[in-house]
């Protein structure tokens, strides 16, 4: 391409092949030349020497035309090329919407937390809706299938047993080992049992079970329901007079609440077993460890953990389903819903746990 300047006219003379490669080579120069022509001069695009021009070349010519503020003329175009240009010109928008490109979003470390808090708040409202749906189950009995509850319980609970056992044992081992070293200096190593069993039963069992539930099941709920939403399946249910709340949400929430105490109990037991291994390695006989566990913990500690776990299950199940039902359009939205379910589930678990701590302290346990 070369540029020839006259007093009233600047001519851009194009030559050779104007395909994607050709256009790429001269794009920036052509645009600069077009922009700098000045509004009172005519921009003339000389196409006499163009051997071939496809739609990429057409885009180059039209963009140059648009970059120039004043009048533009095209000269020397073959009949076909002129027709192509006219057609493309007629169908391009006069004021194209600016294209921002595929940009990375700005870093926002608190955004995730904020999103988590938001979905936790939405989840609370959603639990209200679920309660209303539960209230109306008697008139919609057919929509709530016990088989479904069992299926989700299997998916959420039974299939997570290996993970629960592994995680529980490891946590028991690590906690016992880490606390045994400093405690031993005070000659209080037997009290490691008290420390570990109380924290496991009251807190860690339910918390870890909640994290596993949020990661494995809350996200799955959101993805399943989100995909149904994207495929218009939720709409189809609604027009059939089938309530998505009763058909999809209640069985999942019930399953989550049902499996959480069992998951928590398993984690507790596995954790205690892990701790026992460490204590025995430190030279305590099994009987001594077991007796000490019996002395350290009360049924109240266990019950406290289990009750909390049911509440965590309700929150995680509700948030997973809500994120799914709130899915926007497109496959990316399903991924966002799953992420929202995990983050919201964990944030709400922590909030609930804090709430429980206050309540239990007030009640004086």
């Amino acid at each position, binding site marked *: 391409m070369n540029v020839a300047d006259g007093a009233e006219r600047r001519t851009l003379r194009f030559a050779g092949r104007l395909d994607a490669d050709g256009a790429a080579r001269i794009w920036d120069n052509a645009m600069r030349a077009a922009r700098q022509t000045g509004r009172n001069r005519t921009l003339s695009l000389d196409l006499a020497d163009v051997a071939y021009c496809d739609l990429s070349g057409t885009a180059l010519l039209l963009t140059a035309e648009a970059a120039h503020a004043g009048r533009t003329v095209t000269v020397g175009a073959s009949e076909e090329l002129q027709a192509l240009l006219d057609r493309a010109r*007629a*169908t391009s928008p006069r004021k194209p919407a600016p294209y921002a490109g595929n940009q990375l979003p700005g870093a926002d470390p608190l955004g995730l937390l904020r999103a988590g808090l938001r979905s936790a708040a939405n989840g609370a409202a959603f639990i209200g809706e679920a309660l209303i749906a539960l209230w109306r189950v008697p008139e919609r009995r*057919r*929509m709530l299938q016990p088989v479904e509850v069992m299926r989700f319980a299997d998916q959420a609970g039974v299939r997570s047993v290996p993970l629960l056992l592994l995680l529980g044992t490891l946590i028991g081992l690590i906690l016992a080992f880490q606390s045994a070293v400093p405690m031993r200096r005070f000659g209080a190593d037997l009290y490691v049992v008290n420390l570990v069993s109380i924290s496991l039963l009251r807190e860690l069992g339910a918390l870890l079970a909640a994290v596993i539930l949020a990661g494995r099941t809350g996200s799955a709920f959101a993805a399943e329901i989100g*995909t*149904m939403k994207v*495929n*218009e*399946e939720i*709409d*189809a249910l*609604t*027009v*059939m*007079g*089938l309530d998505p709340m009763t058909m999809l949400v209640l069985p999942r929430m019930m399953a989550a609440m049902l499996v959480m105490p069992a998951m928590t109990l398993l984690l507790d037991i596995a954790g205690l077993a892990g701790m026992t291994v460490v204590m025995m390695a430190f030279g305590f006989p099994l009987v001594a460890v077991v007796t000490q566990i019996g002395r350290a913990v009360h049924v109240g500690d266990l019950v406290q953990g289990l009750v909390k776990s049911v509440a965590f299950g309700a929150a995680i199940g509700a948030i997973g389903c809500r994120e799914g039902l709130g899915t926007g359009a497109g496959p990316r939205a399903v991924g966002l819903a799953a992420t929202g379910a995990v983050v919201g589930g964990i944030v709400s678990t922590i909030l609930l746990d804090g709430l429980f701590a206050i309540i239990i302290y007030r009640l004086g346990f």
Partner: protein
Amino acid sequence: MSASPPIIDVAGATQRFGTRTIFRDVSFSVRRGEVFVILGGSGCGKSTLMKQLIGLLPPTAGRITIGGDAITEESGAAERDRALRGMGVMFQSGALFGSMTLLENVMLPLQMFTPLPPEARVAVARVKLGLVGLADAAALMPSEISGGMAKRAGIARAMALDPPLLFLDEPSAGLDPITSAGLDQLILDLRRDLGATFVIVTHELGSILAIADRCIMLDRHAYGDEGGIIAEGDPRRLRDESTNPIVRAFFRRQVPQTAEAA
């Protein structure tokens, strides 16, 4: 045309998304036992209008009654439910339940709303699948069938409860001409034998002329930047007599001469 009472009555239906007015002031009525077709270019709001008619999308403005029951009133939830109960809907995407086989998809409404025992449900569902030519595909999952099969399964499911009013969004899109003609025949047969009313969104010119009693045509630029109805009536008369350039172009499969492209 006899003066049977309208089963659907739409008055001034309008839909806005943000600042875009997809259509406004859409008014028409559908008579009982009629095959009513909604026409229009891609993206003009046909599916959106259908979503309003089936109660999924509250119109920005306007009033819709079905069988005399208003579905757009805020208050009358019971009235709305009753109106929606009598309709079967096929979505543009088919919207089959992905976790169930085709047979189970068709059986679901039967299980929920009829006292039929399980074996009877299976039998009824098989009949419906057979009618749309899917007798052999009953045990397949939605992920295992083609787009055209999904549409037909969607029709079978919409017919599950023998609703007196059926909404079909582009039933024959993506079907070969023979299956498509079979579907047209099925629609006419059901109308004749069961007295069903059909509201159908379609682009298929042949299908429109073969089955439609009346139609409306939507256009994105009916009122400048706002969409709405540009023609209404018997499609055969519209084809022969309309002076609207878009309508003429549509029936002649041409690019409109006065298009906004100029």
